């Protein structure tokens, strides 16, 4: 409820500053700089921001456009075209509308990302989502490293009514937990298996290798349909390095942008989507079980442009 109240406060999709700039009859260089600033403040990044502004400038020049309302719309359209890009944002497990044949179950989703971005929380929310869809779900606590990580996942499992496969001892091999979970999920005919992994910084080569191993081990039993990279919306330009290295290490099929309920806008995902060709699929909007939603390009773009 707190969240809903907060979201409705940002009703003006184009921020006040931008609104004033683009309402002027003639755009000067410093006006264009202000437009660029709006993008920079949303973490879109220096490169991408200046490219966007250049494109918009040339759009405006070519079309001989001076009407501020139209220029405003052009900026939004440009941004939306880049963010949207006709990507398929459905989760693989959702794709199969009919009953999945038993030998293709479970559909496996692996959560990956750097430390503290919201992997475990998103796993819990996703489980809740699938349960609500009438699917049978299992989760695997393949974070055997972080203090009480398995307990945290188990609490989520408990709340959303989903069984969690875990190891009793800290520091167990995460790949063998994943393997066991895949096996159990298959045996029980679960529709979906969600695998939570430990947070790891992308510059730790050995930990990145471990991810590849987790995937391979699961694939002995089941198909990995999704590897979701969980990115924190507060992340700045390092988000790009994260995406690239995780993509190399385990392959990524989608991005979850978390903590978008805060003041950060998550603009780095624009470059990440473009560079990797992998769509943002889900958005985290809070710490509760229902604070997960599908990524909506238009809402996201409004958020970017609303930065003061």
């Amino acid at each position, binding site marked *: 409820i*707190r969240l809903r109240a*907060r979201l409705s406060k940002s009703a003006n999709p184009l921020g006040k500053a931008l609104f004033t700039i683009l309402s002027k009859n003639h755009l000067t260089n410093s006006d264009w700089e202000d437009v660029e*600033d709006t993008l*920079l*403040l*949303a*973490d879109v*990044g*220096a*490169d991408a921001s200046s490219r966007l502004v250049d494109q918009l400038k040339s759009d405006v020049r070519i079309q001989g456009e001076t009407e501020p309302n139209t220029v405003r719309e052009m900026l939004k359209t440009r941004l939306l075209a880049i963010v949207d890009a006709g990507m398929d944002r459905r989760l693989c497990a959702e794709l199969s509308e009919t009953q999945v044949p038993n030998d293709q179950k479970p559909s496996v989703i692996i959560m990956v990302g*750097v*430390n*503290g*971005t*919201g992997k475990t*929380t998103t796993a*819990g929310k996703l489980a809740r989502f699938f349960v609500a869809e009438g699917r049978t779900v299992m989760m695997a606590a393949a974070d055997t*490293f*972080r*203090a*009480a990580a398995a*307990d*945290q996942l*188990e*609490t*989520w*499992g*408990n*709340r959303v009514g989903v069984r969690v496969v875990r190891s009793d001892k*800290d520091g167990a091999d995460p790949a063998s937990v994943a393997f066991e979970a895949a096996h159990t999920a298959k045996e029980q005919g679960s529709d979906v298996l969600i695998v939570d992994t430990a947070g790891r*910084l*992308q*510059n730790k080569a050995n930990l990145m290798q471990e991810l590849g191993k987790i995937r391979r081990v699961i694939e002995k039993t089941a198909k990995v349909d999704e590897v979701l990279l969980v990115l*924190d*919306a*507060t*992340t*700045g*330009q*390092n*988000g*790009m*390095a994260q995406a*690239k290295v995780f993509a190399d290490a385990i392959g990524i099929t989608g991005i979850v942008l978390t*903590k978008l*309920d*805060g*003041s*950060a*806008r998550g*603009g*780095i995902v624009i470059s990440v989507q473009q560079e990797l060709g992998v769509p943002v699929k889900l958005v985290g909007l*809070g*710490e*509760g*079980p229902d*604070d997960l939603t599908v990524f909506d390009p238009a809402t996201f773009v409004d958020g970017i442009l609303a930065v003061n």
Partner: protein
Amino acid sequence: MAAFTSLTDRLSQAFKHLRSKGKLSESDIDGTIREIRRALLDADVSLDVVRSFTSRIRERALGAEVSQALNPAQQVVSIVNEELTKILGAGVDRPLNFAKKPPTVIMLAGLQGAGKTTLAGKLGYWLRDTGHTPLLVAADLQRPNAVTQLQVVGARAEVPVFAPEPGVQAESSDVVEPGKATGDPVKVARDSIAFAQDKLYDTVIIDTAGRLGVDQELMQQAQNIRNAVNPNEILFVIDAMIGQDAVQTAKAFDEGVDFTGVVLSKLDGDARGGAALSVASVTGKPILFASTGEGLKDFEVFHPDRMASRILDMGDVLTLIEQA
């Protein structure tokens, strides 16, 4: 990563050009300033801070110290380095504030997932190692198993944990959902002080729930915890990977709990950590510690000069200039 040519590369181009000319013109300086601005933005220094920083650099670069220097380019770079270190280093050289009359109270605050609970363990370990008798306090009753996590961390550090409330756990009441608080964190914090006095612990480290800068309700709760325990230090823990949001968040926590120092976490990653500059210049609060890993000992006193080189990739630039 082609998109992110380093400042070293870019400045080396600019300086190659300068070297042949000897003297710096105003447009040479503007070109250099543009590269520095770009490097700062790529390092996630906040836009406002970049702006005021570069205008100060420009002013000094146009002044006598540069035009009269033997090697003007080198002079510009050392100005940049100097100014960066100055902001990052303001007040850094101070130790932790200890109370005259124990216990010393240290409260941790920050965004979700910043590294507070991990830091509590590190601080506990470090204090115990230096002859103190610390107590960890589990005042995050919201994040699923935050209390369990602190207990595990405390056990590893061999530091006792005051945890009268279980928080959100699989075993606890089944009414509570993740994301909703159980029990009263303000009371836990308050009670911990009496407990510490009674049991003669000399330092109390209070772990609090992660909260957003825009969440007024939870920010008020943090303020209530602070008012209940009167901390000697309130440490704002911030992730080195944070982007432009650093300023707004730091301001919100500064207004909310008026923190006394900053801890920069996850510095073992490859983020440049421009947030350090933003937070230091916007709040004027000292950065006291760097967190550099998930282990108990991955923790050190903050080094402003190292951070300056890191943000601007300056280590290389300085060598480059020296070779010029």
